């Protein structure tokens, strides 16, 4: 199962069974969403911290427009994988291919400028700034007025500010956080902070959105809200989403395909149904009911 080619065959077979067609150009899911070609491919990624191998020779791909989940027990290397994608970690071995090109080692800010936005497991917001300002930082890369224009608030700087403010407000509306627009983020409860972080990532209009445990620590209602937003984002903007999540119910409901990791290795890859019935995955993670 750990061979990517094999897993894609299995996936394609599964899709074929369910009456859809799959090819290099993608396919349409049962609920009518378009899944495109491979947009990002991780090839034989190995990441070490000193003597510890956090990720061991993992390969998988991400298709345009899909929701791709990464699951696994604590310490399996899921967050490390997300950090590799977003450039916070640099793997010792392996290649990252993005939009058909091999990506050279890059700083996180350069990767963000390539259209990859992310949220963090422990929430990394600008606590002292208002919700609106936080969302506006997501628009920074869409603004390119010169520093002199900005210093004197001339022409382009002014127009840009207005246009981007508009876009930020749209995102705020979309995620239903209008009523806290002016509140300093530090004062918000946990669940709302998570939503603001999603708003900031979304404001960048990313091609790929990386969500590190977007529902951790939430109650059932908040989880439902967040699930709805994730689906809406994917549906409305066609954003490719990679998410790490512990709540199996959520993962199975949301995702198109799932990568399962354990001790830094990939032990499963496929549709939720396939993963659910994979014996190795059941042993390592899903487990059997303990009495």
């Amino acid at each position, binding site marked *: 199962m750990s061979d990517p080619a094999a897993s894609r065959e299995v996936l394609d077979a599964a899709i074929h069974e369910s009456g859809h067609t799959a090819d290099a150009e993608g396919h349409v899911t049962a609920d009518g969403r378009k899944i495109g070609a491979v947009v990002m491919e991780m090839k034989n990624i190995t990441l070490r911290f000193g003597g510890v191998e956090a990720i061991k020779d993992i390969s998988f791909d991400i298709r345009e427009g899909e929701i791709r989940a990464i699951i696994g027990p604590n310490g399996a290397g899921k967050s490390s994988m997300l950090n590799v994608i977003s450039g916070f970690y640099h793997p010792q071995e392996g290649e990252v291919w993005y939009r058909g090109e091999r990506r050279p080692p890059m700083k996180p800010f*350069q990767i963000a400028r390539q259209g990859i936005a992310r949220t963090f497991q422990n929430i990394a917001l600008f606590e002292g700034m208002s919700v609106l300002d936080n969302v506006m930082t997501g628009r920074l890369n869409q603004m390119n007025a010169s520093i002199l224009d900005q210093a004197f608030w001339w022409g382009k700087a002014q127009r840009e500010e207005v246009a981007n403010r508009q876009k930020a407000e749209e995102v705020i509306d979309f995620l239903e956080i209008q009523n806290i627009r002016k509140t300093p983020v530090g004062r918000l409860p946990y669940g709302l902070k998570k939503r603001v972080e999603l708003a900031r990532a979304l404001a960048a209009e990313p091609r790929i959105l990386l969500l590190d445990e977007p529902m951790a620590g939430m109650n059932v209602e908040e989880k439902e809200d967040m699930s709805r937003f994730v689906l809406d984002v994917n549906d409305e903007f066609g954003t490719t989403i990679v998410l790490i999540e512990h709540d199996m119910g959520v993962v199975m409901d949301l995702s198109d395909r799932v990568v399962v990791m354990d001790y830094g290795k990939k032990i499963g890859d496929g549709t939720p149904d396939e993963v659910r019935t994979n014996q190795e995955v059941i042993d390592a993670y899903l487990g059997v009911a303990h009495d």
Partner: protein
Amino acid sequence: MPEQLIFAMEVTLNGLLNGVMYALVALGFVLIFKASGIFNYAQGVMALFAAMTLVGIQQGRVPFGHLINEIFGTDIHYFGWEVPALAAILLTVVVMIGFAWLVQKFVFRHLVGQEPIILFMATIGLAYFLEGVSDLMWGSEIRNLDVGLPQGINDAIDLATFEIFGYGFFIDNLDIAAAVIATVLVGGLIAFAQYTKQGRAMRAVADDHQAALSVGIKLNYVWVLVWSLAGIVALVAGIMWGAKSGVQFSLSLIALKALPVLMLGGFTSIPGAIVGGLIIGVGEALFEFAVGPMIGGATENWFAYVLALVFLVFRPQGLFGEKIIERV
């Protein structure tokens, strides 16, 4: 109106204008501290260096003149031209931006993620280094700085107060000019931080590095920007103080006066720096006026520090600083 009260009013007014100058120096500290968490001990020396550079450029001095003459046995000191004030100021701004870039490239870039105390030590080193460079480049003599700011008693205020109180206030035109320029500068900086892309990036970097990286902010660029702004603020402070008392080494010591201002206003607040500066300016002027004669005068030398001590005991985060909350 009793004579004492009229004098007190004059003292207060002068104290306020002096306070603006203190605030200006403190502002340079706050800018860097907010954006990078570095307490920049070199801010005062930066003001000295900026003022020296401005005078040097204006008078057409040859930078490193002494050094060149020593090595090559020549005797050149001037290029033989004079640069108009405005052009000289712009050139000095360019120099300060260059300095910011060098500081970031050769010092703080290598210290990212270090303890604040280490960064602070680095700025002490930077202060001594810059002091030396300043000497080497432009010499250590006292220089007159004249960029065409108005100086001397303000006749209008003198006349108006004479008509009302029968006593004309002595208010220096330079102090008024300094207050106006400082107000414009501060207003501009606040607007810049609030409503522009780079201003927002600055605030973002100050708040959380990881998050800033994840939205595509280049930390190095923002830091160079912040140091450049601090350099420009230093230049303005250097011009004001230099015009007042000549450009000389003691200019770098005005930075010390900023410390009590910061303790009052809080290290992280721009309005705090302004209000703190005003309180210290007025406080020390009034204290000298009221208590000074009784205890032999010269209270300006220590009043600010005692006030700062009192604040440290009762309100360590300052008037406007972010509240210190420890989560358990």
